[in-house]
């Protein structure tokens, strides 16, 4: 029996497995992938890059993997080849999964594909990475097949329900309909627990752990509280941050643009190389404070390497001002992120954060309840934090806030493998779930609302005000269900009814069935939910709403015929309406 964990990242995917039994170690799974035409090699990460090769770009055997092949390739060679050609490389599919403005099930990637070239949907790209990893495992370990519920797949804690369901859909299409979803920051903490068997001695009831997870493309915050129940230490996830499209890639890109200003015009492939070099130069400069600059050299494109080289440099002062002051500034805990209202997205682009200050977003997260939440411990995750200087800066800023509140500094939970912890933690969790073991309680990390138009006489030019009905309370646990009390709806049979759907990660105390008279600012609108009642058209059915959270963590909304009406005993599922209605 094997338990399996998959970290489906914005820039890199990783996987790990664990044998049965609480003490069996969690092992990294190196994923074989094309590294060049016709060459397959196993690496600890699978870059989340999908290359859509042209019909005769390569002979078919050059793209062959041990378990089959096709023109759509994932991983190291995909990323490399994609930098050499135009409009054939899909990246950041995961960020698109959570982009409310985009048609996420439609073929929209790569966004820069010239007309006539193939495109795939963000779901399809995610499916391709998952299928690649799963096929690799099946090929290498045919004697240890993966059972659905023994596989955990991680998503950002801040992923809303639509993004989670799309991830699940990708998993289903990859052949694992029932796999378990797990939040990445929780997975990072599981990995820390796995590597510290004495963790119960390191934490005390009342401790509050802040997980700061800065990945390639997203930043994710989570608070986990240690509590005591029946003399046992338990962990409960009590808050997650908003979805921030801000990560290490943005940082390295900002550095590359700065360095490029001193260089002659670079082509796409050279810029890509510069981007990679800037990442290494950044780490070197942050590591060694005695260096004033790091040299960059882009080898000549032709065979003259030294003669054709373009030289450049990255200066310490730039790294400090761009990274430390730009992304990790020392800010007061009362500062709020600068947020300009997003204009209705006219062009198809990712809604990157307006304010790049990760520390300011952190302040807003910790201050959500009005009072500053005061963590006693902090766990870092994500490749960005390989630079010790950045970990220190976050700790420094956090501890300054804590000092103002008269609290002791937070202790850093050390020893995590920043690149692979999430996959390892996921494998550990898959085992704990199946065999019993420590589990972080938490439930659904958001509350959900449907919009209800107020009944009022129509006034020309004035839309009736919208109220919000709480349908899913914060923290609803897996394997539970609840009915929305006090309200029923009359829906026409045979035609679709649509509800506007809202989410909040900060409102935690709205009980199910609560009606908010107006839509509060902290509610964010998701894709609408749609229901189509089967039956004889033209009649109306009276229904009540029910919510279920499945064992695997999927949220379902159901409409149920009201007792005493002709539709008693009937149930209909509400589905997300992801295709935008064309006016």
């Amino acid at each position, binding site marked *: 029996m094997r338990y399996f964990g998959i970290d489906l990242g914005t820039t890199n995917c990783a996987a790990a497995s664990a044998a049965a039994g609480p003490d069996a170690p969690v092992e990294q799974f190196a994923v074989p992938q094309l590294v060049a035409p016709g*060459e397959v*090699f196993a690496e600890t990460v699978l870059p989340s890059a999908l290359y859509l090769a042209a019909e005769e770009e390569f002979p078919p*055997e*050059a793209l062959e993997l041990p378990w089959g092949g096709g023109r759509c390739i994932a991983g190291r060679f995909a990323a490399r080849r994609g930098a050499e050609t135009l409009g054939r490389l899909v990246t950041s599919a995961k960020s698109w999964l959570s982009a409310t403005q985009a048609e996420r099930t439609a073929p929209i990637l790569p966004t820069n594909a010239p007309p006539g070239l193939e495109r795939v949907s963000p779901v399809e790209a995610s499916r391709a990475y998952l299928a690649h990893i799963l096929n690799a495992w099946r090929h*290498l370990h045919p004697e240890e097949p993966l059972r659905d519920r023994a596989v955990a797949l991680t998503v950002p804690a801040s992923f809303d329900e639509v993004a989670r369901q799309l991830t699940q859909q990708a998993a289903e299409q990859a052949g694992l309909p029932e796999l378990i979803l797990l939040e990445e920051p929780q997975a990072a903490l599981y990995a820390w627990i796995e590597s510290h068997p004495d963790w119960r001695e390191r934490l005390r009831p009342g401790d509050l752990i802040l997980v700061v997870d800065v990945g390639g493309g997203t930043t994710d915050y989570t608070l986990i509280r240690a509590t005591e129940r029946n003399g046992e230490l338990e962990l409960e996830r009590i808050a997650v941050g908003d979805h921030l499209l801000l990560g290490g890639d943005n940082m390295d890109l900002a550095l590359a643009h700065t360095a490029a200003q001193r260089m002659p015009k670079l082509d796409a492939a050279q810029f890509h190389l510069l981007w990679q070099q800037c990442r*290494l130069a950044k780490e070197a400069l942050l590591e060694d404070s005695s260096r004033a600059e790091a040299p960059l050299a882009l080898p000549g494109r032709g065979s003259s*390497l030294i003669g054709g080289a373009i*030289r450049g440099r990255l200066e310490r002062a730039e790294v400090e001002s761009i990274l430390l002051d730009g992304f990790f500034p020392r800010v007061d805990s009362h500062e709020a992120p600068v947020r300009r209202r997003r204009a209705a997205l006219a062009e198809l682009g990712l809604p990157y954060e307006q304010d790049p200050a990760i520390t300011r977003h952190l302040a807003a997260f910790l201050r959500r309840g009005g009072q500053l939440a005061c963590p006693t411990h902090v766990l870092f995750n994500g490749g960005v934090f390989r630079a010790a200087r950045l970990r220190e800066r976050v700790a420094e800023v956090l501890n300054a806030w804590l000092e103002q509140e008269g609290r002791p500094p937070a202790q850093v939970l050390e020893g995590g493998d920043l690149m692979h912890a999430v996959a390892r933690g996921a494998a550990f969790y898959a085992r704990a779930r199946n065999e019993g073991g420590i589990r972080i309680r938490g439930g659904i990390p958001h509350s959900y609302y449907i919009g209800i138009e107020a009944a009022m006489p129509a006034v020309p030019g004035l839309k009736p005000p919208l109220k919000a009905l709480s349908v899913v309370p914060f923290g609803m646990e897996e394997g539970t269900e609840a009915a929305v009390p006090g309200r029923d709806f009359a829906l026409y049979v045979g035609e679709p009814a649509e509800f506007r759907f809202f989410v909040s990660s900060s409102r935690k105390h709205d009980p199910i069935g609560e009606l908010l008279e107006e839509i509060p600012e902290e509610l964010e609108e998701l894709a609408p939910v749609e229901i189509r009642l089967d039956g004889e058209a033209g009649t109306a059915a009276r229904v009540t709403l029910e919510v279920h959270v499945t064992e695997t963590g999927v949220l379902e909304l159901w409409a149920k015929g009201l007792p005493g009406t002709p539709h008693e005993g009937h149930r209909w599922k509400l589905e997300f309406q992801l295709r935008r209605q064309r006016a």
Partner: protein
Amino acid sequence: MAFRAFFGILGGTLPADIARAHGYEKAAAKRPEPPREQPKPETGALQLLGLMQREARLIDFFLEDISPYTDEQVGAGVRSIHAQCQEVLRKHFRLAPVIDGVEGTFVKAESAGALAREPGAIRFTGNLPAQGKPTGGVLRHRGWRADSVMLPSASPKQNLSILAPAELEVE
């Protein structure tokens, strides 16, 4: 482990005795390779050369006339070649010293462990005894051994003599 050996064998460069000395043999035996064409001896060499060129542009560098350039220019170029060559070595070989000791101190030949009796694992220099092998000496160089080789598996149809393709940019 089985996996590493699997690729080591595909590369065809892991001598059986070295594998045995480091305990890889069992793993290799667990997953027998289906009979396949014996890789030609130059396969591994061409693959490695191609790899070094692809990742670090090593052929370009060695075959370029660097005499017209200043030390500074060469130095700047070498940095990235060095970093990338190192990455290739780390990724595709597991390298370790033959004798893991402090250079300049006296060590016994036995410090090489199982390799102590391996001809070619230790080279004695200096004032050699008239008869028999010396039992130790001052460690001048720790030596290197490859514990494992993990080269990419190449498709049999691949023409490995193409070390780097010519590049034509379509405008």
